[in-house]
């Protein structure tokens, strides 16, 4: 009964979404107030209905209803409750339902926070979101019904993929989807502006917080996914350039470009059509990512559900949504105009350069991801593109962008003088350069790449500090605290995000430069020295888990004879699926991780084996990679807390309304 209720709620949600998509749009075209007014209640109603459907599915999982196909394939009665609930979005159907829920949630949020928007704009934005939602709900209902029954019911479920039975995996998809789907708001704003023919600073100001918050969620989601891969795949890597990772990285790069471009459009009115194009691209790439993951076009460790019928549907959907919006762009963008002009050296030009680099980086990821597909489609053979390509393309591209990140925020709008910039930044440059050249000696080994990476990070830190210092020095009001408080939150958000990039670069540079990876065969009781540490392998003991059997190893870590830590890496075999999982044991410290994971037993089986293959890695400063990402996301959240998004919009609208009334 409960699953049918969920199914029914989903069908009604489709009808409501269709109404939300069509009626307000027509209303806006005819300036029909009542038709436009339908947008907000419809968006909220749709959210409630999709939430009901989602709750019904979660209930089916929680109560082990194996008569539901989706539950029988992705859950098990031995699975602990929190993973049963997380299994709701562990399957193809469930994750799409989560997509739809997020989309409805974002629409609902827009309906709540759009009181200050002109009616026609709000109606168009919500209606575009409604139309996107129609596509997803149709996809769910016709090709991926999460509530499909299984007759006769299965006696027991096949269990959730063990890779997904992990706290990181519980939060990774919702956060990632929050980001993906969040770009739908910027997308809807862009389309609404194109349809309405009004694209100005106010429009950019409305779009900005939505874009920033979606970007912050996406950043967190990607970081969580990367952290998860680091400790569960057992290889100690944190980014694999896997197509699915790329699928999340492309919207991130575009979203980052969009945030910066929106800033210019808001402050200076420039880059208008470019901003709109980026808004369309960011969401299009989110959709493309979904297509790549769900259609089976590309092989990936993540591609868990593939079905050609679904692929055809998503492709058609992509064609309509992306093709339609790009056609609209081609038709209307010319009338939107380019906006103001600026000098060669100005903050605008820096941001333009940043945008170009980010988009080129995105295009290179897209090319690398789809290149195997292109070759295959042209019958030129099957290949895969791996990390060497991406490493070769990426670092040279991003290095200049990072350098500009230090200069851009200090540069004046419209026109800046190079000598003045140089004077302001010379100390930051000198400090960064000297410490980058010296630091590698302190850390152990000097290499040009390490020094260069450290230079970029230190340059960001130093230029951020200079930026803050000059702001404080430049203001004349009150004491230090009052001067700090005088700056808007969005300014601190920007500083934080840039600082986060610096932390991230430190992590990447030091882990690439100084990591030690040893795959060794260890007899029980044997010791091995890795870096400054000595690792003693004391054997494995069996330990039962709720739905798996584990072999838990014991490894003592010593430094100069002193016991530092005892680590317990695990090898798990899941009961229902028989799949094996490697759980690495990681001792995290400020300066890096000591990472131990079990390979294969040698001679004998499991607990009786006399020796094991053991992977021992030292990963200096690796956690700074994720710390940096979280600081970036935090910067995003700080930026949207800016009061100006609430006050200024109201004021400006008041002025607009007054002007309109006066006409």
């Amino acid at each position, binding site marked *: 009964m409960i699953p049918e209720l969920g199914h029914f709620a989903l069908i009604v949600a489709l009808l409501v979404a269709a109404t939300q998509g069509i009626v307000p749009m027509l209303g806006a075209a005819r300036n029909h107030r009542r038709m436009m007014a339908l947008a907000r209640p419809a968006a909220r109603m749709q959210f409630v209905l999709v939430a009901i459907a989602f709750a019904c599915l979660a209930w089916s999982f929680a109560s082990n209803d194996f008569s539901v196909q989706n539950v029988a394939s992705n859950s098990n009665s031995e699975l602990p409750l929190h993973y049963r609930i997380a299994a709701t979005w562990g399957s193809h159907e469930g994750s799409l339902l989560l997509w739809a829920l997020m989309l409805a949630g974002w629409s609902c949020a827009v309906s709540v926070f759009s009181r200050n928007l002109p009616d026609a704009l709000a109606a168009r934005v919500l209606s575009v979101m409604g139309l996107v939602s129609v596509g997803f709900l149709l996809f769910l209902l016709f090709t991926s019904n999460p509530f499909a029954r299984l007759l006769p019911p299965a006696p027991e479920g096949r269990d959730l993929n063990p890779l997904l039975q992990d706290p990181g995996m519980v939060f990774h998809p919702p956060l990632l989807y929050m980001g993906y789907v969040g770009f739908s708001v910027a997308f809807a704003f862009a389309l609404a502006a194109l349809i309405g023919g009004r694209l100005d600073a106010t429009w950019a100001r409305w779009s900005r917080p939505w874009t920033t918050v979606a970007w912050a969620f996406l950043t967190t989601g990607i970081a969580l996914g990367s952290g998860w891969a680091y400790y569960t795949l057992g290889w100690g890597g944190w980014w694999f350039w896997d197509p699915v990772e790329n699928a999340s990285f492309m919207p991130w790069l575009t979203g980052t470009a969009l945030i910066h471009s929106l800033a210019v459009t808001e402050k200076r009115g420039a880059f208008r059509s470019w901003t709109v194009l980026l808004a369309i691209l960011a969401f299009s790439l989110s959709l493309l990512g979904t297509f790549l993951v769900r259609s089976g076009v590309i092989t990936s460790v993540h591609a868990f559900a593939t079905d050609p019928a679904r692929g055809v549907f998503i492709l058609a959907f992509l064609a309509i949504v992306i*093709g339609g919006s790009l056609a609209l762009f*081609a038709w209307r963008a010319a009338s939107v105009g380019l906006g103001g002009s600026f000098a060669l050296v100005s903050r605008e030009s820096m941001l333009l350069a940043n945008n170009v680099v980010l988009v080129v980086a995105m295009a290179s990821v897209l090319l690398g991801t789809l290149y195997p597909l292109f070759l295959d489609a042209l019958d030129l053979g099957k290949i895969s593109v791996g990390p060497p390509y991406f490493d070769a393309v990426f670092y040279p591209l991003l290095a200049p962008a990072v350098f500009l990140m230090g200069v851009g925020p200090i540069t004046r709008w419209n026109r800046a003088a190079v000598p003045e910039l140089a004077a302001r930044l010379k100390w930051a440059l000198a400090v960064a350069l000297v410490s980058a050249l010296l630091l590698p000696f302190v850390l152990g080994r000097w290499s040009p790449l390490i020094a260069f990476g450290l230079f970029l990070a230190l340059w960001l830190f130093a230029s951020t500090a200079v930026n803050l210092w000059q702001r404080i020095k430049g203001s004349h009001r009150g004491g230090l605290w009052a001067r700090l408080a005088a700056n808007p939150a969005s300014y601190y958000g920007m500083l934080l995000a840039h600082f986060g990039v610096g932390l991230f670069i430190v992590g990447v540079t030091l882990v690439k430069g100084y990591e030690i990876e040893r795959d060794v065969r260890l007899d029980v009781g044997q010791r091995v020295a890795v870096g400054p540490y000595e690792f003693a392998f004391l054997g494995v003991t069996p330990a039962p888990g709720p739905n798996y059997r584990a072999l838990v190893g014991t490894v003592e870590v010593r430094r100069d004879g002193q016991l530092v830590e005892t680590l317990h890496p695990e090898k798990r075999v899941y009961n229902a699926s*028989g799949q094996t999982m490697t759980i690495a044991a990681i001792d995290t410290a400020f300066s890096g991780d000591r990472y131990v994971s079990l390979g294969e037993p040698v001679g004998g089986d499991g607990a009786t084996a006399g020796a094991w293959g053991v992977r021992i890695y030292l990963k200096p400063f690796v956690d700074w990679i994720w710390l940096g990402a979280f600081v970036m996301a935090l910067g995003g959240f700080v930026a949207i807390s800016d009061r100006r998004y609430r006050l200024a919009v109201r004021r400006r609208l008041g002025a607009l309304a007054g002007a309109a009334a006066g006409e």
Partner: protein
Amino acid sequence: MTGSSTKLLRWSIPLAVFVVLLAFLWVGLGRDPREVPSPLIGKPAPAFQLVQLHDPGKTLATSDLKGKVWLLNVWASWCVSCRVEHPLLLQLARTNVVPVYGLDYKDKADDALAWLAQHGNPYTASIVDSDGKVGIDYGVYGVPETFLIDKAGVVRYKQIGPLTVEALQQKILPLVRQLQQ
């Protein structure tokens, strides 16, 4: 050409790029990216000489199988997907169309024997590759895998993952008949 139409053209570039991309995605949809050709296909099967599972006194070597078309099925008692393809292998064995040799990969002999006793033994003979060295020669990266080897000892086909009825009827068996002539 008028100014406005060149402008329209310029604004249409993103759309044009997308249409090309769409075409590729459409073609890609009809393809199977998992169909990875093995570098071994068309090359001589790596030689081995291994102890037989049911008769540890005897060995089996690739040279013993010259002149025969045979299948090498990589399996293990710990392998779950092997249970999926096992009924199919048993059926195939009953038809006597082609001999199937089992490569018991990274497994213990006792477990393997017990497993075959329980599920049935489709193999003409099984050989034991306990340390997985032969598996490495064959580029095994997931069990089960199945290789079709011709009379001259050349690998002609490789199935990654469990055998399916489709793969057997459409690819393997027609190829076997062709090679046996």
